[in-house]
């Protein structure tokens, strides 16, 4: 009986893995068809994908880090602002495929598939199978999800964050530590996982009225950030070298209080015209929508530690001054997808899904066309 159950789950997870990658590529293909109609491109989708995205946004930086590592000084010294795990994996996979871009794309796609499985497992554990599928669907239709299949850290981070949250809710502390540490090595916001980990550890120990050594595994999460800072120290002689680079051209990123940043987004949105609709208005909307969703999640009884992760993640993301990647970053706030599943009204769910589907095609087309979707 047990064996049958394991097989059934295995088939379900394989199905989810394939479906996740397929849906994201169907969105890429549909928007590519539109692009072909408008721009008269002759090449195939994968050829154009390679040409288009190899020099796009942060991809070239990841490829350079994967090929040459971090630089102590010079033109590329500022690439130390990118976290090391993803380029490290690219370097490993490139030993086999002999192309850093292809290596990155393979990693992203595999991570996307695994992240969909863990999204399902996490929400299934919290709310049951049907709602778990709702979460997976809205995750796959996230309007800025094109980064999940290109050479960006999104897929890897989503996979590690979802794995870590799943293990947090399952009280598997060593796994929490390892996945959390790796998440903190792939993105700044990875450290946000420490919040739900500590939350659940404290509640777990109080519930059992005893100290459990395994809980110390959760302390591995900030070790990921520490390793990154150590790399800064070793390569450029300063624990916080990345901060100076972030402040400088071309990012101009400086941490400010959220209120100041929102004022800046608003002013930029008013000045930016069309770009406002793909960056600043979206960021502003997602902030208030995100906070409202987290409050709603609390009201509907979603686990407090998951809401705490959402809050900590948003807090860290919106501290960035001159933020232009807010829509992409907000994909990592996985709590939003879980709260969506909690919605009881299926009509509202359908409307949200439909809107996300349309916007997914729109923003993916914008990305193909080279608009500043970052």
């Amino acid at each position, binding site marked *: 009986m047990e064996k049958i159950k394991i097989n059934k789950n295995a088939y379900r997870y394989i199905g989810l893995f394939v479906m996740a990658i397929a849906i994201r590529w169907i969105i890429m293909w549909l928007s590519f068809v539109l692009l072909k109609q408008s721009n008269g491109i002759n090449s195939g989708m994968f050829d154009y994908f390679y040409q288009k995205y190899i020099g796009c946004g942060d991809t070239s930086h990841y490829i350079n880090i994967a090929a040459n590592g971090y630089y102590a000084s010079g033109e590329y010294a500022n690439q130390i602002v990118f976290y090391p795990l993803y380029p490290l994996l690219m370097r490993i996979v490139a030993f086999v495929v002999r192309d850093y871009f292809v290596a990155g794309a393979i990693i992203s796609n595999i991570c996307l598939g695994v992240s969909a499985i863990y999204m399902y497992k996490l929400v299934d554990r919290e709310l049951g199978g049907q709602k778990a599928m709702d979460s997976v669907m809205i995750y796959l239709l996230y309007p800025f999800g094109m980064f999940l299949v290109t050479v960006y850290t999104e897929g890897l981070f989503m996979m590690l964050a979802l794995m870590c949250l799943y293990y947090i809710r399952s009280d598997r502390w060593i796994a929490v530590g390892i996945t959390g540490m790796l998440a903190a090595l792939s993105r700044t916001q990875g450290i946000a996982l420490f919040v739900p980990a500590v939350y659940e550890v404290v509640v777990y120990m109080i519930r059992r009225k005893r100290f459990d050594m395994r809980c110390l595994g959760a302390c591995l999460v900030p070790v990921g950030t520490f390793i990154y800072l150590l790399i800064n120290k070793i390569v450029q002689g300063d624990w916080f070298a990345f901060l100076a680079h972030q402040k400088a051209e071309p990012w101009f990123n400086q941490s400010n209080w959220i209120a100041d940043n929102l004022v800046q987004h608003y002013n930029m949105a008013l000045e930016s015209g069309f770009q406002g609709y793909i960056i600043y208005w979206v960021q502003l909307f997602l902030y208030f929508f995100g906070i409202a969703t987290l409050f709603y999640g609390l009201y509907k009884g979603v686990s*407090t530690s998951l809401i705490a992760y959402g809050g900590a993640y948003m807090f860290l993301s919106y501290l960035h001054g001159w933020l232009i990647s807010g829509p992409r970053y907000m994909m990592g706030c996985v709590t939003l997808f879980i709260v969506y599943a909690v919605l009881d009204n299926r009509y509202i769910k359908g409307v949200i899904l439909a809107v996300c589907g349309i916007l997914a095609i729109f923003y993916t087309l914008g990305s193909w066309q080279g608009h500043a979707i970052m």
Partner: protein
Amino acid sequence: MGEFIGASGGILMIALIVILLYRFIIDMGIGKDRIDNKRIGGYALAAVCLGLLQMGIGAMVISFVYDNPVSVFNIEAIWDMAPVVGDSGPMPLFDILVKLLGSLLFKKYSACALYISFLSGVVTYVTLGLVIRRYYADEEEFADRGQGLFVSLICLPASVFLFLPSSFAMFMALLGVFLLVWNGGKGNKIASFIMAVICLLTHVSGIIAVCLCIAGLFMKAEGSKSVIRDVIVMSVSQLVVIMISLVLGWGCDIEYMLVYAVPALACLAGSRIKIDYNVQSFVNVFMVLLSGFVICGKLTGLF
């Protein structure tokens, strides 16, 4: 508009953090059996609405008087009078907290002071509401006599000062928490004493909490006698505080007056006197008018 969006975003994030901390305390099992989320939510919502509306009225009055639109959260421009930022008296806790948290919020000390004080205003209303509830044996008696007292608390003259950045606002919140612990039954003496010391570290009027603790040690009383004891101790000690403050130039008349709301509440709730609904309505109307008189008078520079 931009300023409003920014300030709203900041306040929402702080509110989320506060609620998560509250949920964390509940999940740890502290006071789980006594927490009534619905009641707390109701009091908190009333307090948030009251605070925001009063600040909104302040912004409207100032914009009208000086013909210059002012943001609701531009506290220093609207409420540029004691006890707003900078006039926090001789006790250090509020200043330390503002400096500490303000450093974390990228040196935004004024915004931090506002966040702390607005939160304090909400905590004051929630805790005093819960304190009132504890004086009544059952829900029916509370609905009959106690709910009106909370409405009177909302109508309190110059209650906006419970939300404005000052050590006084924080003190009132801590006093509410102290009273909640104090009335929580036996075994809370150490917690009460710790809360009393924190109250004293925040504001000179914290002496009344310390006096209550000392009185509790030497003057044993039960039931209505303990209420009488508490009311007398609070009133007399606050009178002494007022005299000392007047001599040394600390605080202001509104601070002196608002503290008396606490013994008054304790007296009305503890004595079980049923106040006629019409009389209570008249008192509330009078207090609200007085509140409007004070706010408009201060903001238009008439006194």
